[in-house]
């Protein structure tokens, strides 16, 4: 088991490095292939009507004129070992994980991401709880009452749920519950520790919007899983030996269904930054998703690299955790 975990860890780190190389190459190489010079690149970080000397100074400071592999090496080194930056009279130490200095805001990237993370985490965790509970509950009920009105209704809603883009449901909910009937007037992030009540109230609309899509997916998955499991022999056996239906469903069937659901749940959580981009853009929540969009609009490469790396990190870690848990449950996987 331990060797499996170690092997998996090494593979994960390796995967992250490959992702970072590809990302780095794409963002620093592609503009050059598109005819962009490093001088031109530097110009966009200097402000209006810059003098030539100023542009050259910035080009040098950002290291844009160095060979790509040297830039990449510096980048990697900074993440692991930190880096000294000169952004004033004295050089400033940027401790690991140092994702570099933003070209635009002259701030280190990491603290910016850390300060935006609570918004995205609150959004993700709240929505995840809602969709896991409601999705599984609806799925189980639908499966048990297969063919009934409830089943048809909830499966119809679920189908609608996976067919609606988040940014449309988000706008509808804003229009209805923030403008028409201001039940949730402000969608402004308030820190959980500052005011828990306001934190929850202001996040209700984004939570529900994001959770709607995923609940629909999970309800469909759960229902399909339940239907399959309920026709298995061991369920028939359990019933035959006279167990109460409740017990059969909760103790035997649901347990079997939940394993793959939890797997997918882990992977979805890792992928959630993508969903956060759309939700945060729609609700103007200033979390990591919004940060991403702004980084891209500003062509701020260290920031873009930072969020791509962070997002990949979550995905890869989620994958790894799921794999290890699987290996723990099912020893065959280890080999």
């Amino acid at each position, binding site marked *: 088991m331990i060797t499996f975990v170690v092997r998996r860890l090494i593979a994960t780190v390796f*995967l992250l490095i*490959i*992702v970072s190389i*590809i*990302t780095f190459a*794409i*963002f620093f190489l*592609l*503009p050059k*292939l*598109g*005819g*962009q010079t490093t001088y031109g690149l530097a110009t966009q970080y200097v402000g209006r009507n810059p003098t030539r000397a100023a542009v050259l100074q910035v080009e040098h400071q950002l290291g844009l004129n160095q060979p790509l592999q040297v830039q990449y090496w510096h980048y990697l080194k900074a993440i692991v070992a930190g880096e000294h930056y000169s952004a004033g009279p004295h050089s400033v130490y940027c401790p690991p994980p140092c994702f570099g200095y933003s070209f635009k805001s002259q701030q280190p990237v990491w603290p910016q991401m850390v300060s935006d993370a609570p918004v995205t985490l609150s959004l993700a965790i709240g929505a995840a709880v809602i969709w896991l509970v409601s999705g599984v509950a609806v799925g189980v009920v639908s499966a048990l009452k297969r063919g009934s009105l409830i089943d048809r209704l909830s499966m119809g809603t679920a*189908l*609608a749920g*996976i*067919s*609606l*883009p*988040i*940014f*449309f449901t988000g*706008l*509808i909910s*804003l*229009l209805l519950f923030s*403008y028409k009937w201001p039940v949730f007037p402000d969608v402004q992030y308030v820190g959980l520790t500052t005011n828990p009540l306001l934190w929850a109230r202001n996040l209700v609309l984004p939570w529900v919007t994001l959770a709607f*899509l*995923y609940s629909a*997916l999970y309800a*469909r*998955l759960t229902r*399909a*899983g339940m*239907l*399959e499991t309920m*026709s298995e022999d061991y369920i028939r056996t359990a019933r035959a030996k006279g167990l109460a239906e409740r017990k059969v469903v909760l103790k035997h069937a649901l347990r079997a269904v939940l394993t*793959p659901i939890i797997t*997918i749940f882990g*992977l*979805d959580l890792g*992928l959630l*930054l*993508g*969903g956060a*981009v*759309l939700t945060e*853009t*729609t609700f103007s929540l200033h979390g990591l998703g919004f940060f*991403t*969009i702004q980084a*891209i*609009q500003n*062509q701020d490469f260290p920031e873009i690299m930072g*969020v*791509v790396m962070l*997002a*990949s990190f979550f*995905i890869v870690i989620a*994958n790894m955790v799921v794999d290890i848990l699987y290996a723990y449950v099912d020893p065959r996987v280890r080999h």
Partner: protein
Amino acid sequence: MTAPIEVSGDAAAAPEAVLSGVSAKVVEGRSLGQIAWLRLRRDRVAMTGGLIVLVLIVIAIIGPYFVQNPSTYHAGLINPTFSRPNGAFGGISLAHPLGVEPVTGRDMLARIVIGARYSLLIGFLATALAVALGVLMGVIAGYFGGWVDSVIARSMDVFLAFPLLVFAIALVGVIPSSAFGLSGNTLRVTLLVFIIGFFAWPYMGRIIRGQTLSLREREFVDAARSMGARGPYILFRELLPNLVGPILVYSTLLIPTNILFEAALDYLGVGIVPPTPSWGQMLANAVQQGFFSVDPMYMVVPGVAIFITVMAFNLFGDGLRDALDPRTR
């Protein structure tokens, strides 16, 4: 974004399941396809979905020749103070059945119809690319196994480790407006197809790899092999025909996912270039300029268009899967 497809464990058993699902009443001599088609035809919901898909395709192809010019301004239909259309429901009238756009007064119907063309075009092409790549890589990995399998499986892992949406927007953002000898929307459509298709193939690849792995061990493949059949023959004559079912189902379900993905890119401003209209772009305008509260129709019309399209594909895809694998019904 989530994985586009529900990869449940039963997928691998699909062809067998079809067989087991055939009851004694079924007339002899019908192929699997015929059986599935019979089932599908009886599924009214799926058929409705399929019909809507057909209608949408027809609209996308010939619709643009019947609507008015999507770029003509109708300043007279706009209230200059509030920039929103005169009249109720976004200025709905006989001349403009879906109303007009705020600020410009352009005909919404025309813009929706042209939006449908691009949406479907990109949805189909990206799916075709993803399926082609996914099937190719999946079959190769599954059939040959060994180091070939490891390399392909690892590279799929790398792809799946990328934050799709984040990466796609960043990528479109750095590519200049003319490159590779293309420019304008031709370039954009090509880019979108490649980016979406390129990131979607590993999902397809994983499914096909799994299927191939299990099929490889079946008796009929062994039989073919023992009769001296070589790799390509087994691949194309024995394996692929058995993969048609899942490929069909998952392609149908991949199309709506890709349509949604494309709409999201439009919404984030890296999709189709204006003045060519697209649904996601209209929603983005509605939110950026705050019109979604002043003129809700501007948001509702493209939103519903996306919804109907994606829903129709999902209905049809679900029906198709059920027809090929009745157990999940």
